[in-house]
């Protein structure tokens, strides 16, 4: 009886709550408008007074102060892949920090794959939603960025507003303004650096392959103990691109250069043929004889833990010691980088053109590039993702934050040198995926 009496009143309460939600956010918008109006006359004189040499920096500083003012009290919906508990925990810490520092309420929206958010923004664009998009900030790189940039789905020219961007020393480090060979044009802020790192279970093999040809020989000796995820999975594609670059290096320099241009029918046939030859030899010795490929590259780690695989690879090498600490990989795991090269890239955060809380999103993006956040991210126990900052731009105290504590036995050895292989032009992703699908995809 009592239960029933309460229900209608509860319902009324819910509906009232629902009705009020839009009002509350409308109030927030009004407040922002008011702040804007009061701010502009105040800040204008400052712009004129500044010295010419510092103009750029102080304009940035002023504009950024304005942004911080606007952002106060806003919510930021940060759409980021949510499959890794370590990354999720790091983002929780970020949320706490931006709340303390800027009174921004950041929500991590956990994606199973980044393309979900891309298609969401497109759906909004197609429905004419140009001001109230749900995605405020998005973790992105490569093909997803290329797609969004081509469809004009990104906010333009905002990176220059962020003071911490200068700490990446962009003039000396072109990598932070190039996403898979495409210029970012100020549409995304660099967040971290990654390189393809391999790891193996030393309980089951003592001599892991250090080069691509050695990988083939090793797989023949240890059949079924290695695999890669099928494209378009990010990790799987990365492995294929690593193989493609190494195989192209063995040919004329002109062929390798083709990889950094948009693919043509001719260059496709020329460049990809050695890759398919290599894979035709490798596949029979892969996990499940190459008849089934994982859809998700992250699952490789689980299979290494299960001893189904002996050799795995990841794009966040710092992740491996953390996984051992959490019992998710055995103590016998060792990391290493391939001697013939490691595919490397930078990952970014971006703001869709229709984001509802752009000011707060920019402030969060700036915080993500701060020495504090970058140092925390680089610690293996937090995430182990390499920083995009140029440490020479930092003060000695700040540099100290980046120095590693004791090296974990499963971490990448410090002396492990490996040439860095840069990402091919992003359009190769689609070509490799379709061609792979045609050859190895739909077979029974």
């Amino acid at each position: 009886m009592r239960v029933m009496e309460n229900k209608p009143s509860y319902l009324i309460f819910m509906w009232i709550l629902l009705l009020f939600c839009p009002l509350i956010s409308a109030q927030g918008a009004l407040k922002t408008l008011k702040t804007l109006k009061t701010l502009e006359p105040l800040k204008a004189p400052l712009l004129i007074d500044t010295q010419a040499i510092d103009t750029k920096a102080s304009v940035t500083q002023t504009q950024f102060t304005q942004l911080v003012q606007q952002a106060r009290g806003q919510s930021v919906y940060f759409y980021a892949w949510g499959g890794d508990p370590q990354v999720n925990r790091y983002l929780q810490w970020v949320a706490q920090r931006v709340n303390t520092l800027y009174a921004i309420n950041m929500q991590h929206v956990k994606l199973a794959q980044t393309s979900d958010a891309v298609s969401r923004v497109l759906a909004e664009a197609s429905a004419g939603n140009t001001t109230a998009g749900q995605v405020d900030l998005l973790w992105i790189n490569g093909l997803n960025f290329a797609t969004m940039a081509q469809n004009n789905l990104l906010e333009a020219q905002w990176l220059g507003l962020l003071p911490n961007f200068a700490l990446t020393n962009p003039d000396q480090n072109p990598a932070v303004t190039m996403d898979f060979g495409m210029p970012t044009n100020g549409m995304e802020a660099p967040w971290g650096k990654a390189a393809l790192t391999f790891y193996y279970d030393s309980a089951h093999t003592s001599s892991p392959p250090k080069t691509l040809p050695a990988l083939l020989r090793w797989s023949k000796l240890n059949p079924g103990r290695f695999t890669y995820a099928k494209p378009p999975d990010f990790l799987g594609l990365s492995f294929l691109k690593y193989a493609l670059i190494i195989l192209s290096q063995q040919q004329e320099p002109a062929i390798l250069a083709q990889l950094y241009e948009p693919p043509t029918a001719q260059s496709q046939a020329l460049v990809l043929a050695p890759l398919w030859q290599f894979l035709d030899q490798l596949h029979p010795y892969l996990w499940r004889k190459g008849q089934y490929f994982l859809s998700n590259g992250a699952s490789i780690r689980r299979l290494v833990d299960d001893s189904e695989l002996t050799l795995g690879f990841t794009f966040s090498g710092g992740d491996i010691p953390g996984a051992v600490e959490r019992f998710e990989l055995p103590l016998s795991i060792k990391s290493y980088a391939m001697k013939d090269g490691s595919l490397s890239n930078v990952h970014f955060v971006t703001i869709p053109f229709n984001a509802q809380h752009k000011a707060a999103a920019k402030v969060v993006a700036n915080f993500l590039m701060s020495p504090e956040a970058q140092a925390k991210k680089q610690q293996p126990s937090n995430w182990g993702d390499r920083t995009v900052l140029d440490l020479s731009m930092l003060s000695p105290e700040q540099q100290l934050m980046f120095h590693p504590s004791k090296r974990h036995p499963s971490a990448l050895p410090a002396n492990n040198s490996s040439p860095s292989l840069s990402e091919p032009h992003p359009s190769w992703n689609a070509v490799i995926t379709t061609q792979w699908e045609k050859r190895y995809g739909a077979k029974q």
Partner: protein
Amino acid sequence: MIIQPSFFTRWVSLSPRILISLLLVPVAAGLLGLILPAFGWLPALGENTINLRGFAAFFHTPGWTNMLGLSFFTSFISTLFAVILSILILGNYFNSRLLGHIQRILGPILVIPHAAAAIAIGFLIAPSGLIMRLFSPWLSGAELPPDVLLPNDPYGLSIILGLTLKELPFILLMALAAMQQNEIKQLINRQYKMALSLGYYPFTAFCKAVLPSLYPFMRLPIYAILAYSSASIEIPLILGPNSPPTLAVAVMQWFNDVDLSLRIKASAGALIQIALTLSVLLTWRLLEQCVKRFGFSTFTNGRRQYGDLCWKILTHTTTFLVLFFIVLALLGLVLWSFAGFWPFPNAYPDQLVSLHWNSALQQLPQTITNTVLVGITATAIALFFTLFALEAEQQHQTQLGSAASLMVYLPLLVPNVAFLFGIVWVKELLGVKAVFSAVVLGHLLFVMPYMFLSLAISYRKLDLRYAKVAASLGCSPFKVFYAVKLPQLLPPMLFSCALGLAVSFGQYLPTLLLGGGRINTLTTEAVAIASGASRRLSAVYVIIQILLPVVGFILAWLIPKLIFRPRQ
């Protein structure tokens, strides 16, 4: 009964229509939002012409016949297995106390979300899974996990296993619920006793004398299961092959693909999914007809037994195997959630740690609040309309027509990949920003049918003499409803609320699509975690996913006991 028109009675007679339109309008809008893009009309991409490009693209997909075949056979065969198993269990344990035990054990299985069940089964049957560990290395000789193709086998055997285990409790419980309705109970008991006294062996007696009267009550649940499993996402996604996957999974992936022009192909695929679901249903109908036609002589030939002992042994073994499998799956989950290092042939982890629980519990409070809030709101709204719609039936002394009952079932019969993407499209088109209410509406589509079906049985069984006495003493219809009927209905109402909550907790696609990822529930988190690397954390999420609805059912069972406790 003459009823004075009042606010209450007018409201009551309106509510069936509101209930039907709450279900019908979104589904219809969703289908419209699907049909237009399927025929090439997607203004967002500058596609303004009606054409068949989407279908052409679909039929050029490598392996599309395999996709269709996989969806068709996994759903058909798993349902067939589940129905045969249910008949074996019902027939062999008919009128025995074992049936009650089985019902009590399988009941909780019903509320395990599909994603959770799939993850648990995957843990079990993988080459490095618990079963293999139990038999290694002493029996199998394996020091390393064998390299065999399970789960994710190309024939869909793992999907069939998963679906059968999930469907069996549903069919069984639906059949048992029908058998407990008074008139059916009397009818089948009479016929069964008669058959026994004529010398039929028990299982043969059940098949020949009880099943023909019982089956019509199982038909609708079976159809719902056929429709569901032919378009289900979670189980094929986690246990199925991926080159190619089942049709529904492929359609979902195309919808989510970075290449936006795939949307047109995805919409066409979703329409083909509807056709596929229809053809599965029609094939089942054909099977029914065949059994009826060719089985008729067998039913009436007077033969008293067909190896009843063999059937009995078979039933004992399969029931035992099913229960063993379920217990092992749950045990595996618990072990993984506490496991430290756990190298392969060991059947038990090296050490037990609470690390995974700690780290999950740190992240979970917000998620659990979201899950419960959405669940309670959807359930409350559904309960509200369901009660009034059923009251309307009683006041007008009619049952919902067959067309109307079909509409209640509609969201369960139309593949949800088909209409949910359409709803998102329409929602964007109308510029609706609300997230919470959209998710609640999405959940309502699935919560309402289940609650209506579960509550309808008790409401229709209600002894109307009390209500008549109250009315003759001058009580208004509102007071009769409120003071006489509702207290009598409290236990089934609470049960149906627990069911509604469980259904809501398990929704993956509606939450993900309508919430735009802004509302994370346990299920969306569990699927996201399952895509990552941590099996241990995944196990924690699955266990919480199972516990939450169980808490609901325990409350539903406990509250009436506390309220109706005999006074000292």
